[in-house]
């Protein structure tokens, strides 16, 4: 294991320093005290190149994000992951901040499941609930399963992501469509 090698190396360096210190006439605690030279020297040797490398990395990061506006930065993570951040932004404009929502995400045939949770659906769910906050989600669970009848009926809004509103197993109000498969609708028990 790498850790063993590093520990042996450090202890060996310390032992050599103690031996040299004893040769130089230092005794007892003073000879062992010379061991402090090892970390100080190692730190001095390593710190400056690391600072320089860190500076380069930081400058590259800065160049990557140069010109990124606050609005773009806000949704960059979701956009990079391939989520429909434009749709969620549009939905957030339609739904009042004190209203609730329920998110329905369509299944894909090759949905990878871990436990009972679809990885893709779970990720979209997490992002969608994040972008729609501080609006609260209700009757929501990570899934990759068929939606149960009535699920989401107590939310003010149903949010359909890659899901046809007509497939929703329950009554819904007028559908506001953003794009095919992306829509919102009032739920059965909307306030």
């Amino acid at each position: 294991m790498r850790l063993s090698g590093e520990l042996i190396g450090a202890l060996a360096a310390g032992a050599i320093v103690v031996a040299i210190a004893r040769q130089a006439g230092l005794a007892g605690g003073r000879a062992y005290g010379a061991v402090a030279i090892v970390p100080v020297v190692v730190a001095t040797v390593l710190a400056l190149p690391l600072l320089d490398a860190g500076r380069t990395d930081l400058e590259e990061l800065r160049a990557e994000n140069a010109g990124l506006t606050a609005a773009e930065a806000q949704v960059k993570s979701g956009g990079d992951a391939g989520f429909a951040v434009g749709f969620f932004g549009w939905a957030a404009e339609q739904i009042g901040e004190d209203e609730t929502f329920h998110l329905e995400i369509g299944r894909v045939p090759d949905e990878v499941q871990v436990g009972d949770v679809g990885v893709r659906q779970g990720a979209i769910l997490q992002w969608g609930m994040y972008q729609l906050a501080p609006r609260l989600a209700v009757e929501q669970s990570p899934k990759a399963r068929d939606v149960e009848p009535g699920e989401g009926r107590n939310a003010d809004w149903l949010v359909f992501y890659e899901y046809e509103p007509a497939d929703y197993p329950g009554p819904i109000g007028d559908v506001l469509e953003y794009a095919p498969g992306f829509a919102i609708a009032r739920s059965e028990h909307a306030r």
Partner: protein
Amino acid sequence: MRADLAPFGVDLLLALAGLGILVAVGCVPRRPSALLAALGLGYLTGAAVVPLALIAMLVVGIPFTLETFAAVVFACVGLGAWRWRQAPSDPPPPARPWWRRSPRSWPVDAWVAVAFAALVAAFFAVGMSTALTMPLSEWDAWSIWARKAQMLTGHDTLVTGFFASDSYVWIHQDYPLQVPIWEALHFRAAGGFETQALLRHFWLFLPAFVWAVAFLLRERVRPLVWGPLLLLAAATPGIWEQLLSGYADLPMAIFAMLGAISLGLWLSGGSGRQLALAAIMLAAAAGTKNEGLMAAVALLAVAAAVARSRGLSIRPLALAAGAVAVAILPWRIWTEAHGIEGDLPVLRGLDPVFLLDRLDRVWPAVEAIGQEVSDPGRWAYLLPLAVLAIAASLASGVARRVAVFYLGSLAVAAAGLVWSYWISPNPIDWHLATSANRVVSVLVLIGLAALVHLSGALLNALTQHRLASPARDA
């Protein structure tokens, strides 16, 4: 403009609150120059105390607003001001400190301190210019920590439809709120939830923590030692990269490290003021992450064992441990009252049958933790160097009591991490792959505390520096 500048006002107020607390507990001499020297520690103390107070207030129903934040800051500053007037005089400062002399007569330590400050300041400036535009990209940073802060920005209370709702069960509702509260303070000051304006405040932890360590150990460790070591710490990618991720692991590790140093100082002949600071920092560590609670328990338990074995009274330590428990209790009561359970089956994790049944998880955890802490590209040999300093102290008797404390703390904290992987319900490979590189931060930073503290004691023994005697014990 407000989004850019006002959140730095929050940082300033946190620093003022922290300085007030430090003066109140006697950790800072009552001189303006000492307050300036303690600014880094002051910021971290404020970032520890104020969110803990706001969490307790939220739990009892006091709304979370900028006004309540201001009231808490005012209370902390008032406490410090009261103490400033009440306490007997501090020892007089050095008659003619080095910075008032001609640079030609500066000692080597002064030059090292100046070079250290210049290099850290330059690195900080480069990092800050990067942090100013960085988006919040790391998954848990937005999905767990910022999401909670977002709710605490949009709502003044602990909305049960979020913090205790089944719809949000995957956000780790049991996780403590120290970081979300700290983030939400910045968002509220900015006037809204704007994540691009967040990481620049995480970046402040970098100078604050090296500054705090140098200040805490100023009477025990010469700049000749802490200068290079803390410079290495600041340059270590495992530290600065994490600060720009928005994860809570590194802030937690910083609080735990400062708690460890405070306990180390107490064990080497310190007073109750170090214990008070240890309690503050360990409460903040425990209030930041559940792993922080484990680290706090490990540090306090090992300190108690060392103190008892050396015939020290552990009553003050018990009081400090009690203070930690009281500080984190409100959130624990709230989660308990709302039926929120954590991922880890802690009670089952003490059942030998359960543990034996999952024995195959132990070695992968040990191996992964060992691989992570020994990654030179990430941690720059900090832990092996710490072990060397501990070994030299144990062999020589220089600061042996403190060395035993750090060694024991590292061992118990590492065992705690292995145990948490052992009992976790998550698939071990996935769990290690997604967390081991972060959770080891607390081990490395406790190691850093040992490295700086003990290297200073060893060098004092070598040079028979006048500061050597208090650090030496058999």
